[in-house]
């Protein structure tokens, strides 16, 4: 088995609900990137929702049980568990962490799932797989189209690094894993202030006003630092910064919000004489990485992003 070996590493894959819906381009680009890097990726069959924030918010036992069952489903597929969504990643790792150290909770969960809790499989975020398993050096050597001149703000959000004892991904206050990956791809990370601030997460359904305020601060900070785009590794962060960007602009980016904007709570019915604020495309890390690996641009799900990133990529001669 020498040169014919198809994959250099193999992973089981937990995409999570968002990646099959509003974050579909994250799923598309993750699969394309893994293929380009010759990393095997096999989806866990019939996985279900990890419970995300709403479950642990009101019912920790339910959250732990849903995750524990998913972890045992993952045992059926070979390889460490690759997770793209920061929320799924956080919940699955938190479950492993809690159940390993708390026998009472573990027994309750085992009753709930009617079987032993499988806690042994390493759960890894895509960032970790790229930077550590595959390795930054090898990543840099694999680049076919360096992202020269692209100024990017790396946005971590909450759950990739917090709380410090759980994710084990990077420093909880001053991480660098995204910047390291970005440099390997040939792009230029900017220094900015809001890398770790919350975007408003799942308030997007219940209290979108919260999201508009918090995500506006993030967009402003990235723009002020000279970023041309933002790179994220979480479908919730992406939704809030991309899907809600029109609403943010309507509320904060113009002298005053219009009546229509107020009624519909979003969109861009601003008065025509107002000075518009620039738009900031939001990329998933896997989209930029796959682009740099020479994956054709129509295989990256770029058309699914609301704030169209293609003009920026054309301007940089990357399309």
């Amino acid at each position: 088995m020498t040169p014919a070996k198809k994959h250099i590493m193999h992973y089981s894959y937990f995409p999570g609900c968002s990646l099959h819906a509003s974050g579909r381009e994250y799923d598309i680009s993750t699969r394309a990137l893994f293929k380009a890097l010759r990393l095997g990726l096999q989806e866990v069959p019939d996985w279900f929702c990890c419970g995300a924030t709403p479950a642990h918010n009101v019912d920790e036992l339910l959250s732990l049980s849903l995750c524990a069952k998913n972890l045992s489903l993952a045992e059926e597929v070979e390889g460490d568990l690759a997770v793209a969504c920061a929320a799924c990643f956080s919940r699955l790792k938190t479950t492993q962490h809690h159940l390993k150290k708390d026998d009472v909770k573990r027994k309750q969960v085992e009753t709930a799932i009617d079987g032993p809790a499988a806690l042994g499989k390493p759960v890894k975020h895509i960032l970790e797989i790229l930077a550590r398993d595959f390795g930054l050096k090898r990543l840099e050597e694999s680049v076919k189209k360096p992202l020269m001149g692209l100024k990017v703000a790396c946005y971590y959000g909450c759950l990739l690094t917090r709380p410090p004892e759980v994710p084990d991904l990077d420093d909880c206050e001053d991480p660098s894993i995204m910047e390291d990956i970005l440099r390997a791809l040939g792009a230029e990370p900017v220094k900015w202030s809001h890398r770790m601030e919350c975007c408003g997460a799942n308030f997007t359904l219940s209290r979108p006003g919260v999201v508009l305020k918090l995500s506006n601060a993030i967009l402003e900070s990235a723009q002020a630092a000279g970023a041309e785009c933002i790179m994220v590794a979480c479908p919730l962060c992406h939704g809030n910064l991309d899907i809600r960007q029109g609403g943010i602009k309507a509320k904060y980016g113009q002298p005053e919000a219009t009546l229509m904007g107020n009624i519909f709570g979003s969109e861009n019915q601003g008065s025509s004489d107002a000075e518009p604020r620039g738009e900031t495309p939001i990329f998933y890390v896997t989209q930029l990485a796959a682009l740099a690996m020479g994956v054709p641009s129509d295989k990256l799900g770029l058309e699914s992003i609301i704030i169209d990133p293609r003009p920026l990529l054309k301007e940089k001669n990357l399309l």
Partner: protein
Amino acid sequence: MHLSNETMNVGFVKKVEALSGTSVRRCFQCGKCSAGCPMSGFMEHPPNRVVRLLQLGQWERVLAGRSIWYCASCETCSTRCPNKVNLASIMDALRKLSWDADGPSKESYVQLANRLFIENIRTYGRQYELRLGAAFNMKSGQFLKDLMLGPKLLSRGKLKMFHSKNKNLPEIEAIFSRIEEMRKKGEAL
């Protein structure tokens, strides 16, 4: 004021501590949690005061308020606490206790969203975002909320018209039922 087990309502505090696996009593009110909290501007009691109220036995004020429902679970407080109080877990515990008491809280939208999200898991296995958004709008009476986003999301394939099938639905239902059963028997909080 003299602090005793009675004035502190230690029974409630112990319940919070059992659920959260952290100590309410360790907090020495440095305020670092509130300083870093992205949501404290939306709360009537900032995070450190939530803990102080618990220490003083005034948990009813906490459960009746909206602070616990405006916590984003960003974990900044737990990360920065110099005395290792896991405040994010305390917030989870308080929401559960408020939820179980059928929420005397003023904040209903966040509770509604949570309820629909969890219902979605039980019914479909995975999140069915179209149903989530539509049900939220109907039940909260905000019929026009985010209406203009719908076509944009649909045209980009970000909103699915139909939910996906899942073979594990009976297993998911069993998990929900077993947890209900354990609680009925008093085997879990």
